[in-house]
């Protein structure tokens, strides 16, 4: 393997981008299926956060509608950070990351597959956590609950796409477990705000956001940051 990965991508014999993504995705999902490290850790961690907040605040039905969106988002955030740290760290063993660098197609496909895989894990965690959450906080959404199916994935995508990117970015630093939240949280703040406010509007049904401005903002945020991450990932991957 003497050619640069980026040159290989431009050759006509290089495999299609989607098939590259699928190959990487299959690999990631298979590793997770065999170990179940990420999902188990995330699930238990998020459950603990939900229980802790519930005990710490002991909210009434009205208060819980007000704070539930924030607790749910923050629980997801903390849980994902613990898993995202492992997303690239597990590739360091046996120099897998170096081998991946030499694969054809460049980093963007690998990155996108990693994001898809992590998005899948976090979504599973949310799907399990959601009902538990509604029980613990005695929630009954007063707004259009079906919108949750749009808002939560959009917010999760924003979290996972940035988290995967910055996990790769901080992989070579000292104490990377600490560094990831330090970079990720400031960047994720606008998306967190949009996500919390739109979930809160749905739960309380107060109609404070009739034109779905926050949901649109979340969508715009997703598009902008996914584009930047895809464009810049090769730089991060090849940085020595």
């Amino acid at each position: 393997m003497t050619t640069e990965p980026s040159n290989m991508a431009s050759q006509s014999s290089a495999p299609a981008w989607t098939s590259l993504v699928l190959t990487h995705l299959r690999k990631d999902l298979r590793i997770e299926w065999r170990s179940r490290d990420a999902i188990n850790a995330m699930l238990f961690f998020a459950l603990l956060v939900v229980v802790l907040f519930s005990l710490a605040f002991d909210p009434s039905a009205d208060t819980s509608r007000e704070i539930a969106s924030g607790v749910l988002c923050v629980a997801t955030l903390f849980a994902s950070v613990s898993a995202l740290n492992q997303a690239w760290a597990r590739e360091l063993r046996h120099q897998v990351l170096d081998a991946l660098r030499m694969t054809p197609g460049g980093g963007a496909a690998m990155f996108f597959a990693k994001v898809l895989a992590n998005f899948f894990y976090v979504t599973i965690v949310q799907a399990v956590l959601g009902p538990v959450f509604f029980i613990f906080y005695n929630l009954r959404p007063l707004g259009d609950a079906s919108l949750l199916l749009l808002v939560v994935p959009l917010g999760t995508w924003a979290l996972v796409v940035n988290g995967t990117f910055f996990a790769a970015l901080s992989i070579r630093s000292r104490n990377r477990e600490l560094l990831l939240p330090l970079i990720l949280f400031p960047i994720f703040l606008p998306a967190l705000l949009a996500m919390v406010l739109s979930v809160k509007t749905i739960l309380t049904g107060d109609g404070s956001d009739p034109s779905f401005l926050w949901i649109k903002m979340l969508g715009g945020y997703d598009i902008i940051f996914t584009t930047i991450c895809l464009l810049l990932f090769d730089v991060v991957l090849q940085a020595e």
Partner: protein
Amino acid sequence: MKKFAIFLSVAGVMALMAWGFYQAMYVAPTESTMGDIQRIFYYHVPNAILCYLFFTINFVASFFVLIWHRNRPTMALKADAWALSGAEVGVVFCSVVLVTGPIWGRPVWGIWWTWDARLTSTLVLWLIYVSYLLIRRFAAGGGMQAIAAVLAVFGAVDMPINYLANRIWRTQHPSPVFFGGEDSGIKDPHMLAAFGWNVLAWAAWGIAVLCFRVYVQRRQQILDQSEAEAALNNF
């Protein structure tokens, strides 16, 4: 000769700062509704404008780091010195904005802080660049510069959002004084003069600090390189 030029420019910057202070505190008339607390405007807004300038310098320099870091490492190193200095000076200016804002807000609004779009995005901007400076400390090795440059691109994305925040949304933060529609602009010539002098003075100060910082950083880089070479030669 060089020392004399440096001395002259430092003296010029100091004089400009003093003149700006005199204009803001003594020449500009007292605002009719807010009173003297309004004078903080002559520090808050110039610092906000200039923090955009320095973060833009950081962004442009980081852009060149990304272009050059593979093929022209020496040029990339130079650009990196500018990127680091731009971020450091920008964080100082942004901090001044974040400190002067609440000092004004407490008497005028009755609260120190509110989570409106302008204030939040300014805080996010500050946090992103602080994390930029943090990653430069944590990440070691030659890849650090490219990695920091990547993070700088993310910071730059927040800048237009911050600029547009009180133009798109209704914020508690006052609507833009400049380029904000028909009503905007300072009507009183003395106030405008005080504002202009302060922009100039703070810009001169910031650029002077930036140049010193770039110089120091370049010296540091050359020192590091010669140390690395010496270590290699000892083998």
